[in-house]
């Protein structure tokens, strides 16, 4: 899309799923009455002293370990100074020169192939409150969010297309959800993304332009695409890209200038004097290791190792919950990977999407495994198994054996009964029998069809085939 070298780096803020705020005991939650979750610490009243939340620190360490970052064992907090009404202290407690994690990376996949994106740093900080503009009386401020813990994950400028940026953001989202440190909701702002983009002729250094307000996954891709086009156009016309910060307007589908270099910030960071240094103890490191689940990319490889196709392994590791479900069905399927995959992807995930709003499984893994088992043993046909499954999905029932009985879906594999039916069919169709015996083997299908018709589709195909073969000789 561009004839120039494109460089993209992302800064992702993730709101941590702690019970309380970063530096005070106020509840970190949403939807409460405005300004009801505030105290002297998070409102920045004089004399109030912050105290860091142990859980938030553990969460940041977990993300650091998962991304292969170095954990800064002697870390600290700093003040970032700026004025904005939703930041009552006049500064944000953040981390400047000793971020809690540094030097990690993440692997991303897509049509562009497989690529490793460096993670420069991950630091802890506190969120600001919420401002609501557009009221006639002025800007309305709610400080419930003020002080909620965030991690900021800063990537290296290693991406070179909107697709890669999208894949990276999705991968970050999967990881923070997987580690249960953030719910990953971009639309609601629990995950926020800013992009730094530069476009320059091959071999030259570009000037990074920052875009803020990327509040949807497709918005990220669209905004970056738009900005690459805009900068390419400037470069093509011999112009110069100037350093600035842009806001993405998702309604208009364009970026607009938020501030230029002249108004650039000077945050005047300095060590937060209200907090002592923080050292990450061996015990804390050990606990974070202990609390870390099998990572998605490790699980994916394990699934491929047990016979799951790579594409299916991607689907099964999109969410941690999918894998847990899959493994229960897999165990119930005598460890037959293809059968378990077929039931989980083809049925369980399909019904999850159709009836569970994409958010919950409508049939338990146990019941799914049971239906798969009924099919595997030949008790019901594949078609009947799907019927049973649909019944469970729609009604919430979890007793497949009873549904089979009620609907009379058992396959007849009783050879005596089958033999009687087949004998009668052979008597009734002498011409076809003659042609079959004369070598027209295609007619086998005709006889199977006749048996199925006579048995209402419930004849066990394997037993039917055997008896037909024997009696037609």
């Amino acid at each position, binding site marked *: 899309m561009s004839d120039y070298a494109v460089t993209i780096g992302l800064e992702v803020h993730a709101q941590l799923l702690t*019970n309380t705020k970063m530096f005070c*005991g106020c*509840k970190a939650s949403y939807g409460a009455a405005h*300004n009801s979750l*505030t105290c002297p610490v998070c409102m920045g009243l004089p004399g109030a002293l912050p105290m860091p939340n142990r859980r938030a620190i553990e969460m940041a360490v977990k993300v650091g370990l998962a991304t292969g970052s170095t954990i800064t064992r002697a870390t600290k907090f700093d003040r970032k100074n700026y004025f904005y009404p939703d930041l009552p202290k006049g500064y944000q407690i953040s981390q400047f020169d000793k971020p809690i994690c540094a030097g990690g990376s993440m692997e991303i996949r897509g049509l562009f192939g497989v690529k490793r994106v460096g993670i420069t740093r991950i630091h802890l900080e506190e969120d600001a409150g919420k401002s609501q503009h557009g009221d006639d009386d002025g800007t309305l401020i709610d400080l419930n969010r003020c002080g909620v813990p965030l991690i900021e994950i800063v990537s290296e400028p290693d991406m070179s297309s909107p697709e890669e940026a999208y894949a990276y953001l999705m991968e970050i989202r999967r990881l923070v959800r997987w580690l249960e440190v953030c719910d990953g909701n971009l639309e609601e702002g629990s995950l926020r993304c800013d992009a730094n983009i530069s476009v320059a002729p091959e071999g030259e250094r570009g000037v990074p332009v920052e875009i803020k307000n990327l509040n949807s996954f497709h918005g990220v891709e669209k905004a970056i695409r738009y900005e690459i086009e805009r900068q390419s156009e400037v470069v093509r016309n011999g112009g110069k890209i100037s350093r600035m910060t842009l806001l993405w307007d998702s309604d208009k589908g364009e970026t607009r200038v938020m501030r230029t270099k002249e*108004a650039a910030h000077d945050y005047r960071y300095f060590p937060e004097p209200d907090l002592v240094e923080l050292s990450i103890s061996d015990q804390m490191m050990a606990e974070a290791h202990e609390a870390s689940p099998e990572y998605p990319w490790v699980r994916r490889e394990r699934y491929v190792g047990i016979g799951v196709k790579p594409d299916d392994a991607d689907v099964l590791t999109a969410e941690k919950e999918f894998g847990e479900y899959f493994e229960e069905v897999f165990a119930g399927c005598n460890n037959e990977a293809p059968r378990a995959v077929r039931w989980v992807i083809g049925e369980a995930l399909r019904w999850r999407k159709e009836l569970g709003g994409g958010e919950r499984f409508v049939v338990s893994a146990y019941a799914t495994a049971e239906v798969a088992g009924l099919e595997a043993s030949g008790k019901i046909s594949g078609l009947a198994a799907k019927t049973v499954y649909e019944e469970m999905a729609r009604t919430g029932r979890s007793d497949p054996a009873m549904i089979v009985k009620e609907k009379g879906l058992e396959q007849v594999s009783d050879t005596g009964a089958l033999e009687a039916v087949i004998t009668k069919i052979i008597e009734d169709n002498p011409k076809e029998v003659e042609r079959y015996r004369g070598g027209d083997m295609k007619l086998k299908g005709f006889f199977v069809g006749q048996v199925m018709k006579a048995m209402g589709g419930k004849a066990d195909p394997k037993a039917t085939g055997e008896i037909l073969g024997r009696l037609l000789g």
Partner: protein
Amino acid sequence: MKHEETKGRRISLEEVNRIAELARLSPSEDEREQLAAKMSSVIDFVEQLNELDTTSIEPLHHVLDLHSVLRDDVVRPSLPVSEVMKNAPQKKGDYFIVPRVIKGAET
């Protein structure tokens, strides 16, 4: 560096203007001149520390001999909204009201 040579020149007027802008202060012309001189003398004073050899000394971020004072993630009661609003020069319902901020015009 000799004290006399640099006096009054460590902090320029432009720097005072920039600092005032960042701090949202509007000192008068006279005050700016005075601030430039005063801030310069403060810097001069602190500059004396450069005479010490600190090559083998780790930076100290905090004077207290304490580290890692942490809090468990347990909810404590927040202030009642009525209490919170006592600090509000202007309010609307449970919101604080501040002079209108143009969206995105963060400065």
